[in-house]
């Protein structure tokens, strides 16, 4: 019997009991659809975070005030990090190309004319631009004379420009922060989202000294950003920085740090680690759902073989060999699972796109779910169909034809 005939036979067998065939498929459809959705969304999420890590900048070490495992910038009330810490790091840690201590104050209102927007105020030194590798698109960045003179000049991120000025050129205009007028001297280039999903373009940068003494009246800084000479030295520099601050803050091992040091390489590793765990989990999930689907298919196949004993006997009487009968039933199982797999992938892609559309989560569509679906569902079909097909083939023609 030729393969084409075998497929035709299996298809017509399935067509005669459409409801049953559909029910056989359902488990696989659900399993593969779930798998596809999770793969698409997980890959989308991973891509978003990796993009964030990229946006965050290369060769970067970030020191934040405040301990714990919290991610992201500290709130303004943490006062454990000082300019003296920054100076000590600069003097005793090797491999640093740029160092930029800065303050961060979240949820500040900036006003222009009758418009206002909530933003993040950064108090920065001129090194900030080099340390972040983030420069002005127009105008000037904070200069030495701004920090030494406590000037009331500021540089705006793109989001703030858009919110307050629309299409108008903001340079030379005056904005109000905390009841203080600032003159806009520059606009930063667009940077995108941070690894934590924050809009990095929603910021106003003012001179560090102005921020500390005039705006927020503090002697502490929020963070220090380092630009390390070589990417390979990120971990070494991070470790040395931590050691220096611990010594200055008199922290010995059992005590918890009152600061956090992180770097881009570590961030990328974290993301990859999370995605590896997620992938393992997904494979497990897929395996379980396909196992359940496979069991239900095997079950229905056994019932089907039992119900179709007479058909098997008739086919045998007219010359079907045992191997033809086995092929027919195995073919039915594999076609059901393959169709279920492809259907599940399409359904999964459609669901992924809908979720991406309605929830604003990025979904990444790729060929992998298709390949996985084909491979897994064919495998499940063969495993689930083999035993029922063998049983069908082993039936004695004389007994089978009696039904």
């Amino acid at each position, binding site marked *: *019997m030729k393969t084409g*005939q075998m497929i035709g*036979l299996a298809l*017509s067998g399935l067509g*005669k009991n459409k409801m049953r065939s559909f029910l056989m498929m359902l488990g696989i459809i659900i399993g593969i659809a779930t798998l596809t959705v999770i793969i698409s969304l997980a890959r989308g999420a991973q891509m978003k975070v990796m993009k964030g890590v990229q946006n965050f900048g290369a060769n970067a070490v970030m020191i934040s005030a405040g301990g714990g495992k919290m991610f992201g910038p500290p709130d303004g009330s943490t006062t454990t990090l000082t300019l003296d810490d920054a100076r000590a790091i600069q003097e005793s840690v090797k491999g640093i190309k740029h160092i930029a201590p800065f303050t961060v104050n979240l949820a500040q209102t900036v006003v222009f004319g009758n418009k206002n927007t909530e933003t993040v105020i950064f108090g920065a030194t001129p090194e900030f631009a080099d340390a972040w590798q983030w420069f002005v698109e127009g105008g000037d960045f904070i200069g030495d004379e701004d920090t030494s003179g406590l000037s009331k000049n500021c540089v705006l991120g793109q989001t703030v420009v858009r919110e307050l000025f629309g299409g108008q050129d903001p340079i030379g205009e005056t904005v109000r922060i905390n009841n203080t007028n600032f003159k806009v001297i520059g606009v930063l280039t667009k940077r995108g989202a941070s690894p934590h999903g924050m809009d990095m373009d929603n910021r106003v940068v003012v001179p560090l000294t102005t921020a500390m003494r005039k705006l927020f009246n503090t002697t502490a800084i929020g963070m220090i950003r380092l630009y390390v000479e070589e990417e390979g030295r990120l971990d070494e520099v991070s470790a040395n920085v931590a050691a220096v601050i611990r010594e200055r803050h008199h922290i010995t091992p059992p005590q918890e740090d009152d600061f956090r040091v992180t770097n881009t390489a570590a961030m990328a590793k974290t993301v990859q680690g999370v995605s590896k765990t997620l992938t393992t989990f997904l494979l497990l999930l897929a395996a379980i759902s396909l196992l359940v689907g496979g069991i239900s298919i095997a079950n229905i196949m056994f019932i089907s073989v039992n119900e179709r004993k*007479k*058909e098997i*006997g*008739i*086919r*045998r*009487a*007219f*010359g*079907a*060999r*045992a*191997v*033809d009968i086995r092929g027919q039933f195995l073919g039915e199982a594999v076609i059901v699972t393959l169709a279920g797999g492809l259907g599940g992938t399409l359904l999964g892609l459609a669901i992924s796109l809908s979720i991406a559309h309605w929830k604003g989560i990025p979904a990444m569509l790729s060929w992998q779910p298709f390949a996985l679906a084909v491979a897994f569902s064919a495998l499940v079909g063969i495993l689930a169909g083999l035993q029922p097909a063998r049983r069908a083939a082993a039936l004695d*023609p*004389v007994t089978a*034809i009696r039904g």
Partner: protein
Amino acid sequence: MIALREISKTYHKEGGVEVRVLRGVNLDIEKGEFVSIMAPSGMGKSTMMNIIGCLDRPTGGKYLLDGVEVAGMNDDDLSRTRNKKIGFVFQSFNLLPMTSALENVELPLIYSPDDMDIAAKARAALEAVGLGDRVNHLPSELSGGQQQRVAIARALVNDPALILADEPTGNLDTASSDEVMAIFKRLHAEGRTVILVTHEPEVAEQASRIIRMKDGQVVSDERRVNG
């Protein structure tokens, strides 16, 4: 064409009881004969048919079909032999339900290793039994007589040496029975070998040779001129 020598068949029932259904059957049937095998129910009729039809193997004895020993064949060879040499017609038609007349008749051809135009051959076989206008009908849309004619077309389609019919009129009314018997006679007239297994004397008598069996043995072998 068929030579049975000391054929015996013994079944083992549950509990270890042996049932000797056939006890040394000797029988020769020549090519082109129209033979009835008669036996009361439960006297080895079906077993005879299964063995002659290569569905079952005898426990003892020799069976030569077209000069080939069948008793020693493996399962695949038996399948091939059934496919090429035997055309079965059953009392209960045994058509595949929800399958068109044409597809039912195609059945033996799809298991044939030879290349051919399957649909055309099946259509021709249906036309030969007068059902050329019913090719796409399902068995449930056909009368009993029509269903049995589809079954005969299926038995004929692969041009077998032997047509083997088990109570082919058992489920039919008189008119349909006559139609079906007329087809068998015509097949015989065309030179085919036909074996009818039946317990109805009026059916058996239409053949040219009647073999009567009892208790697993041949008790009489009668040749008739009128058949």
